[in-house]
């Protein structure tokens, strides 16, 4: 085991290379660039022995990953914002084809206006593609989640692609110490990749052929079942990883001081980490509040959130907006509770366009909700303070 002090992107590159994918196909985009640059560097040092395909666009990057994965290779890529959006068609394709591709997405604002800072609208827009979605809040979590994602994606009851999102610059370009296990630990944990199906000249099949309505209906249902399996497997895989590496990042929700809390704050990504400071300070001020950071947006932790709402009101901070409605996490939390919980749910939009969300901002939001001053749903911080 060694400690590596590096940025989220270089840590993700390290994790990806240690998982030994046979193919990486990627196209650079700020703020993902240093991730693929990191992998390219491992090609130079000889540590990455797979095929590194430089393509002409993100649509091609995902298409190349689909081809490689369909041929039976472990496959990795990374992108961000407009790159992710350009992949959109092929994201559906990868999931419907049941190809266990692992991809990092660095959450970046969608233009116009041109903006390279963070919010979650890029990955929230891919919610319905069938990909499993993780949101990380530290570089250690990025490392552990990338490794675990290969195991999850390739599990015979899952066989779905996995997207690991983390915030532009706040994580992608910020150095933190990360404990890196020995290569043998990763090898032992992941094992050799055995594809569930593959294109093979010695066993010829065709893929993506015409399919009747009922058969297609069954394909969709199988994807849903696979996401349900993933929900149960995510903590199991994390426990197995902890046994081998000593680290645990694996619950669908990361809970912080939730026992007996009257209020629970829910958010995703780096805001979830920042919130811990706010929770500590609010508790010192005598307020009974906890934090549930949502790690998996798909599969959505419906039962876990419902359980939290039995004794606490919920405060949601969304760094995204489904224009015409409200924040995506807010919508989904309310859906999880519908008809089964009396809890009040307060929704806040914050930090769009990469606007800073400090622990003081989070405290202000929580206090507003806890003192009964919050509306059902509102935008925080639209004016200069």
């Amino acid at each position: 085991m060694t400690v590596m002090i590096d940025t989220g992107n270089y840590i993700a590159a390290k994790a990806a290379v240690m998982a030994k994918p046979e193919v990486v196909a990627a196209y650079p985009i700020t703020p993902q660039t240093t991730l693929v640059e990191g992998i390219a560097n491992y090609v130079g040092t000889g540590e990455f022995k797979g095929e590194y395909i430089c393509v002409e666009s993100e649509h091609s990057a995902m298409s190349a990953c689909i081809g490689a994965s369909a041929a039976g290779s472990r496959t990795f890529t990374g992108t961000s914002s407009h790159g992710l959006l350009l992949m959109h068609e092929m994201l559906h394709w990868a999931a419907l084809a049941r190809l266990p591709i692992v991809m990092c997405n660095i959450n970046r604002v969608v233009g116009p206006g041109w903006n390279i800072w963070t919010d979650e609208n890029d990955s929230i827009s891919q919610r319905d593609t069938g990909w499993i979605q993780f949101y990380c809040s530290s570089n250690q979590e990025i490392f552990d989640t990338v490794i675990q994602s290969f195991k999850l994606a390739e599990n015979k009851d899952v066989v779905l692609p996995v997207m690991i999102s983390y915030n532009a610059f706040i994580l992608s370009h910020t150095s933190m110490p990360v404990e890196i296990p020995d290569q043998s630990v990763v090898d032992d944990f992941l094992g050799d990749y055995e594809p569930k199906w593959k294109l093979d000249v010695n066993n010829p099949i065709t893929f993506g052929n015409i399919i009747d309505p009922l058969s297609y209906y069954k394909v969709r249902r199988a994807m849903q079942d696979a996401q349900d399996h993933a929900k149960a497997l995510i903590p199991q895989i994390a426990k197995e990883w902890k046994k081998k590496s000593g680290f645990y990042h694996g619950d669908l929700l990361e809970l912080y001081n939730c026992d007996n809390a009257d209020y629970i704050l829910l958010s995703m990504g780096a805001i979830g980490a920042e919130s811990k400071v706010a929770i500590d300070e609010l508790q010192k001020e005598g307020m009974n509040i906890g934090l549930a950071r949502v790690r998996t947006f798909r599969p959505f932790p419906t039962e876990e959130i419902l359980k939290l709402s039995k004794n606490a009101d919920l405060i949601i901070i969304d760094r995204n907006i489904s224009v015409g409605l409200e924040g995506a996490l807010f919508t989904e939390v309310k859906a999880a509770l519908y008809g089964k919980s009396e809890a009040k749910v307060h929704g806040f939009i914050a930090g769009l366009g990469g606007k800073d969300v400090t622990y003081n901002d989070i405290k202000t939001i929580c206090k507003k909700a806890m003192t009964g001053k919050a509306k059902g749903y509102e935008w925080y911080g639209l004016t200069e303070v």
Partner: protein
Amino acid sequence: MKKYDVVTTISYPKTGAMGKTGSWRVFKPVFDKEKCVKCLRCWIFCPEASIKREKDDTISIDYDYCKGCGICAQECKVKAITMEREGEKK
């Protein structure tokens, strides 16, 4: 043949999955064994695997499934395959 235990859109090779597609044919390829030089271009290019390769590297045509596209006749450099309208004899 190995079948995969996964619910997605995979299809396995099978003769006549769409029924006897030979009934779709308007033009029919007719093979003249005397002209054949055994180059097998027709066998390579037939998109429906309806050209059967014989032991002596000449060919026969599977009229049950040949749709009459005419690619074999186009590719044959010695005009050993010619297209005739169905029901018409030259």
